[in-house]
């Protein structure tokens, strides 16, 4: 090929490939704009209409969740089929308890970062904590004092695509925030443990705002840890427990247990009785990759396949869909 012909071919290829890329991008932009305008218009003003509480703030007895388009909305717990009322918040993960809410928002960019937005009883932003990574879990202690979250961080390496989790805890009373609890002294199987690959995720706080449970992973295994926030230490209780969720009465945990290496049925929800350490599989047999939330003392709910489902927390009954097109469920009390 002569240099001139080669250049012609190159320019033609740049034109075709560039045209394809630009054309597809323009089409995708129009497609997504069209889809967005069809879905419910969510504004702060809309959120105030008929939520039953001033300023879009959720009252007790509500079931809140995140819609497929990311808006936080609520229905009455006794009528989950009712039309969802938006709260005027857009989050990737949301949780609320005792008048404090946490909203994790991904900020996509050349660098992915996440904001943990803390909101008060009237859903006014009181604090914004800037984090690396992608939103994963969010929880608030029953009193509303302790807020915790987990993000996936990928910035470790520019190209090898490995993940680690960073879990943070905020004490809203003192304002003290830890963005990565990995430094907490850990006792594993009775011995003080150090390792570079320690990852925590899925925190759940007890009513005393001090004791918490979480998952710690190291050496390819996961463990349930019990943490003491005040003394700043943690110890493992049991192997193969992920994303624990403490019952309102503080006696039981529902968690996801790894039951298969097949990613399509990797985790099954189980109940753990804390006084006896007895495990019971829940009636939900499908793969569930979520930190469950307690709807009431006898029922948990979780995201599965784009919907929120509920199942009795004692292994009986059968799973039923609770809210279609939703995730991050949380019941206000």
């Amino acid at each position, binding site marked *: 090929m002569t240099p001139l012909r080669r250049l012609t071919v190159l320019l033609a290829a740049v034109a075709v490939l560039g045209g*394809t890329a630009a054309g597809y991008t323009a089409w995708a932009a129009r497609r997504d704009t069209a889809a967005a305008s069809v879905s419910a218009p969510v504004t702060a003003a809309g959120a105030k209409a008929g939520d039953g509480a001033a300023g879009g703030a959720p009252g007790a007895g509500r079931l809140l969740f995140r819609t497929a388009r990311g808006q936080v909305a609520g229905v009455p717990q006794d009528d989950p089929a009712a039309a969802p009322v938006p709260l005027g918040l857009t989050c990737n993960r949301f949780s609320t308890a005792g008048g404090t809410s946490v909203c994790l928002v991904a900020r996509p960019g050349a660098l992915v970062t996440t904001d943990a937005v803390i909101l008060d009883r009237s859903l006014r932003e009181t604090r914004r904590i800037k984090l690396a990574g992608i939103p994963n879990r969010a929880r608030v202690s029953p009193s509303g004092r302790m807020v915790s979250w987990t993000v996936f961080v990928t*910035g470790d390496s520019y190209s090898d695509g490995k993940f680690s989790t960073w879990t943070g805890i905020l004490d809203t009373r003192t304002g003290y925030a830890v963005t990565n609890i990995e430094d907490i002294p850990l006792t594993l199987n009775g011995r003080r443990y150090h390792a570079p690959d320690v990852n925590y995720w899925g925190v759940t706080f007890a009513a005393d705002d001090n004791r918490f449970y979480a998952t710690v992973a190291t050496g390819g295994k996961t463990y349930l840890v019990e943490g003491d926030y005040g003394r700043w230490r943690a110890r493992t209780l049991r192997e193969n427990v992920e994303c624990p969720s403490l019952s309102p009465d503080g006696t039981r945990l529902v968690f996801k247990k790894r039951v298969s290496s097949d990613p399509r049925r990797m985790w099954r929800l189980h109940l753990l009785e804390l006084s006896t350490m007895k495990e019971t599989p829940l009636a939900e047999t499908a793969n569930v990759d979520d930190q469950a939330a307690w709807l009431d003392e006898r029922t948990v709910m979780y995201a599965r396949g784009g919907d929120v489902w509920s199942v009795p927390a004692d292994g009986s009954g059968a799973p039923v869909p609770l809210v279609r097109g939703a995730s991050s469920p949380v019941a206000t009390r």
Partner: protein
Amino acid sequence: MYISANGRTADGTRPRSRLSWAVPGNVLALGAVSLVTDVSSEMVTAVLPLYLTLFLGLNPLQFGLLDGLSFGVTALVRLAGGNLADRWQRRKLVAGIGYALSALCKPALLAAGGSVTALGAVIAVDRTGKGLRTAPRDALISLSAPPDELGRAFGTHRAMDTLGALLGPLVAFAVLTGTGGAYDAVFVVSFCVALLGVLLLVMYVRDRRAPLPGTGQATSPRAALGLLRDAAFLRVCVVAAALGLVTVGDAFVYLLLQKRGGIGAEYFPLLSIGTAAAYLLLAVPVGRLADRLGRVPVFLAGHAALAAAYLVLLGPGWPVAVLALLGAFYAATDGVLMAVAGPMLPAHLRTSGMALLQTGQATARLLSSALFGAVWTVWGSTWGLSVMAAGLALCVLGTWFALRRHS
């Protein structure tokens, strides 16, 4: 521009002054291919975590399990591919297959949908493509520049490569912002960019084909392994592996920097970009320096810079200093090692030799992360880092004695 294959004019004199910035056309072409390909692949790397977790709702920890296995597969493919490139004397073809495989993975990622198995397979194929192309590409670079300018040639190539890696996430972000979050558009644009890279390779990169080996020039896998009987090359392989064994992975360095340096959590992703920026700025000047002062001293100085980075990390923990030293380490070692090894390897076995060297180094680094993890587990992170820094100092001294004659 420099086109001649052996770097000498007919009367054997050097055509240009040694301060010239000109780089052989084939090296620039390979650099352009790498730049464009890295834009494409880093676009995907930048958005893949978001796509997998927030768009598909998958758990990224499900993907980490494949790592050990895919490393083994990549290593074998790299060795086999390098050897085939020599047997057929078709380095461009083998490199091209590697680039094309990775290009095809972009639409395949979309086609895989939400299946973890399919996504894991596509990611593994993508890495295989990367493993396949590296050795033939580096062999082509080493065959395309005169031996006394290899440092600069590799430096130029690595700088272009790194520039692409820095641009990729920006392009991905622009597409995501412009489309209101359409991940499929990112994959389609990435695919188009990757095809352009393959086209650039096909049209602008010249293969450097030795005559097909006759009886005296065996290129069998056995002959490739026989390269290790050459004392000089064996020393380079042993040295690269030994130094790889005491090199702490970047992931650990960034984690420690974040813990010790007190960097705000939201700045964590900037750390790897800081390293890449330092690498980009230093690759060419350090490569030139290697040609003038000797490659082995520069290679060792690079590891000394790494040891210094650990010491800063153990001491004051200044982030900018650590990242600059880390970038200097890459600039003084990655391409420079290939420039050290290239002239030692016979042209007809050069790809096999480079694949052998790169695989040995990669294996040593995998072991080092296990080693470092073990030391950390037993004695804690400070001791872990101190042990690695001491190991580096010892290995640099040992290497100095082992390689003195090849500087």
